[in-house]
């Protein structure tokens, strides 16, 4: 139990997910397992563009998400997707929080 708690705290201390917005985005991307557009994510979270850009830059720099601009049927869109590293991290986080319950 102590080992798991220590592991959970260690994960939560890492820069990328030490913030509830970033961790929340990653968990949502993990469950959706699909691309989400920047504008949709901004609308969902109701936060300013600059804040979302800041959070996504950190997640991208840590290799937890991929951000690509692509031409869609609605015009050019910035698409965000969770990477394998991100998926692994969230899986571990969810397992630990489930065990802590």
């Amino acid at each position, binding site marked *: 139990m102590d080992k798991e708690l220590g592991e*959970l705290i260690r994960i939560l201390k890492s820069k990328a997910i030490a913030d*509830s917005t970033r961790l929340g985005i990653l968990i949502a991307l993990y469950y959706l397992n699909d691309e*989400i557009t920047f504008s949709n994510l901004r609308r969902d979270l109701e936060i300013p563009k600059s804040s979302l850009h800041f959070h996504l830059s950190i997640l991208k720099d840590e290799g937890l998400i991929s951000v690509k601009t692509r031409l869609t049927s609605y015009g050019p869109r910035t698409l965000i997707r969770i990477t394998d590293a991100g998926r692994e991290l969230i899986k571990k986080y969810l397992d630990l929080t489930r065990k802590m319950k």
Partner: protein
Amino acid sequence: MKNARELIRRTRKVAGKILYRELRKAMGLYYLLWSSLTLSMGLFYSIIYTFNLSLPSLAFIAIPFSIILVYFFLSYNLFRKASRLRKKRRSGRFQLIFMIIASSLVLSILALNYYQYNSIYYVTPSLVYDALMIYIFYRTFVRGFLRAKIYDYLAFTSFVILFPISFYYYFLDYVYSIIWLYSGISSILEVF
């Protein structure tokens, strides 16, 4: 420890907000998609009768089924998201349920064509289809992530009641299509 707990609590709220809105949108699109089926079919038959096109009898079955298959493919993609939001992933079972749903609809239409005077042959598959729609409602709204709103109840209840009877009274297709259109718009407007 207290900080970690607070972080987990806030995180759940953020993730829940994104997932709720994305799933609501998916449900809205699902309602809108199926509300347009009657229109698509109506358009197909209107073109044939207006221009007096003489299609081989196989085309009369193949073209509507192709339209339905496109609808099922799009629905599957929309529901995939909802099926992931469960404790255990059961995508194999989910695909199987979707295949049974599609085949029960196909069977009911086929049976209607061949056994018009023996209702049991097409009422049975349409009741199977109804039962599976109830199951989808249960998985999405009762055991799933979304909470059912009045328009969700309206959409599913109208469909379950009117779908088997609509084989006798075609105008009922338009009734539940309009209800689904309303549910689709309401669902999407909720998150925009």
